[in-house]
């Protein structure tokens, strides 16, 4: 038992207690939480900071406004409903198209047909706070449904794969691609059964995957190998993520990005308590990278510089770091 703890310590694995006490409580002042917990506010701040985000179709924040839902989605084939204060992907419904057979019915990313009334009930639940972290009143966002890049088609079962980047004091220190599976119902959330694939920070290439707590080489539904995919716009993704410090003022934050077929990388949401499974996906601990950033931290670095330093510092497999100018090229 102690041997196992020692091995994790040597690998620089960050535990939940350490994450809570040393990173979240020290670097994430509670007064800034609404900036990430309230997705309406996040979207506004991100737009101001120059991040690309999915277009907002409408917000429903009163039970009385639930009936406006039909009006908001009128003429739209696909959209996403999500609670403004939800966490961990709970309460999110992805609508990919309207049902061709039944009127006022929609098809979810998982292929289930839902009626307008059912969606309105779901929105009503959201507004009454069922998915809210505080349990209080909430709002439902209806926004653009990302048309995902065919790059990940082979390793996704419906839904939209997304890219989670952990940003420590403004430096992106670790990343993974989250791939929806049949059991995750098209959602890119690891605890709902999605596969996480580690990413080489220097190249943007995927590494092996993790399902639950186990390492997997292939996608469980499609059977396609997970490793070796190159994420496009990798520089832009890292630079956008690095801006999370300026947007949220949180020192330890998870940034979720998606790649739209037409619009490129979009920032979906941010998380002040990002999970730790990303370490399994990358096969390496966060604590070591946190310590490295503390060594080289420079408050004068701008987001672009910070992204470049991360690419240089955190090459996969702890292989010899690439020369800085080679990365820039």
């Amino acid at each position, binding site marked *: 038992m102690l041997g196992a703890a020692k091995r994790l*310590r040597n690998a620089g694995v960050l535990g939940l207690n350490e994450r809570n006490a040393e990173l979240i409580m020290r670097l994430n002042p509670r007064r800034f939480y609404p900036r990430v917990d309230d997705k309406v506010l996040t979207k506004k701040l991100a737009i101001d900071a120059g991040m690309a985000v999915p277009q907002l179709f409408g917000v429903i924040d009163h039970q009385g406004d639930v009936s406006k839902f039909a009006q908001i989605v009128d003429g739209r084939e696909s959209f996403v409903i999500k609670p403004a204060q939800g966490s961990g992907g709970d309460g999110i419904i992805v609508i990919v198209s309207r049902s061709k057979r039944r009127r006022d019915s929609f098809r979810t990313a998982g292929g289930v047909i839902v009626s307008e009334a059912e969606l309105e009930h779901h929105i009503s639940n959201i507004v*009454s706070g069922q998915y809210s972290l505080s349990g209080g009143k909430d709002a439902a966002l209806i926004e653009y449904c990302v048309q995902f890049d065919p790059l990940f088609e082979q390793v996704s079962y419906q839904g939209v794969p997304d890219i989670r980047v952990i940003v420590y004091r403004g430096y992106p220190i670790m990343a993974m691609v989250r791939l929806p599976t049949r059991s995750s119902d098209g959602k890119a959330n690891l605890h709902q059964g999605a596969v996480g694939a580690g990413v080489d920070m220097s190249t943007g290439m995927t590494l092996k995957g993790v399902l639950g707590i186990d390492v997997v080489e292939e996608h469980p539904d499609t059977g396609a190998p997970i490793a070796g995919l190159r994420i496009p716009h990798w520089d832009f993704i890292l630079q956008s993520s690095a801006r999370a410090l300026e947007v949220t003022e949180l020192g330890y934050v998870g940034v979720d990005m998606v790649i739209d077929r037409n619009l490129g990388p979009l920032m979906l949401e941010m998380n002040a308590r990002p999970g730790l499974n990303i370490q399994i996906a990358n096969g390496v601990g966060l604590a070591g990278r946190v310590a490295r950033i503390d060594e080289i931290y420079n408050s004068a670095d701008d987001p672009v510089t910070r992204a470049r330093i991360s690419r240089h510092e955190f090459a996969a497999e702890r292989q010899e770091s690439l020369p800085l100018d080679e990365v820039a090229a």
Partner: protein
Amino acid sequence: MTKSYVWVLAAILTAVGTLMFLYKWLVLGFPVYERQEIPAWTVETTIRFDSGPGSIKVNLQIPNLTPGFGKLDHYSVSKNFGFGVNYAGGGREAEWTVRRADGEQTLFYRIVVYEDKGSQQSDTTPPFPIPPLINEPLRTAVEVLVAEVRDHSADPASFTAELLRLVNNPSPNSNIELILAGAQSSSDFVQMMTTILEFARIPARMIRGLVLQEQQREMMPVPWLEIHDGAAQKNYLDAMAIAEKRADIAQSTLFDFSLYSLPIQTQSVYSVILMMPIGALVMVLMRNVVGIDAFGTFMPVLIALAFRETQLFWGIVLFVLLVAMGLSIRFLLERLRLLLVPRLASVLIVVVLLMMLVSILSHKLGMETGLSVALFPMVIIAMTIERMSVLWEERGPGDAMRAGIGSLVVAIVAYLAMGMDWLEHLVFAFPELLLLVLAIVIILGRYTGYRFTELGRFKAIGRD
């Protein structure tokens, strides 16, 4: 920085808690164990004499049943002597006999007694005393005193108390002065009281006793006054001893700022409340050190409290039964698409009705434990059902069952910890020990090591 503050604070709390505990335990003598061993006393008499040649018969008055004490054992150590116990004249007598002996003889008699509040006397009822012959002028003085005391008392016990109060008055009247004039020693005093009591036709006698104290090697018997009030013997210490005893009681109440000074009803409530920090400590350990998933922060502790009412086995059965039934009804309600708060209220009402059904059914089946389910916190169960059903929908039955079983496991551990009698007694007698619990919780609050379950979770990393 914060970490060192935490250690300093924890050290202060530990020091204060430990010092208070040690002071109460060692100085004030609070019992550490619930079933404090009742003090047992070994009382030994030694009879030593030089006998001439010939046969010897030694008689020793030995304690009969004394109110407030029980006899554990008694035996005699004597060489060559025959030993027997006789009942004679309302008391017991040890008798040693030997046909032929010469020189110095040593006889031991040893009795082991223990404090037993329930022990009442007595085996013998003495006859009504014949009024003793008292000569004038003492006779008139006694008559006046007896008349006065009789006016102010109702029965033999109160008569004796009043008599002792009057004769112990620091400024006695002339009658009492006359009566006490001849009493030089305390045995004379007790003898005189016996005479007065017999004059009032109350059976009384002087006995000699020992005031039991710790670590006494040699003691002289103290004369006591014993009366028989018709039902039982009562012993009265002599005047000095009564006063000392009073002082003792007064002094001990000064220190009595413990929970024991509260009414019994409040005490029993506190004995439960004071165990909640122990449950909270278990919760902290299970969540932050072991890493078990559970609903809510302190819900398992509240479930554990509910188990106290039902006992563990039936508590688990009832909890699982109610949550399972409630869950299925919650899924039925789901189809009605109710808003959150009305849905929670509906679940609560259904839980109340289910409980009622369980109670009635179990009563009809002759199981009494079902009745105590009424004390199960209904709101806790309703919340458990709601959280579990949301988790069930969002993350699937696996996660929901895991968190449900986790809550139950934490609740069982908390119940076992909170149900330890010795711990309950210790915390109740020494509430300052909770400062130590607080210190532990504060230190654990800065525990940044891995949780036990994380060792398995991250096992894929660092294995080269």
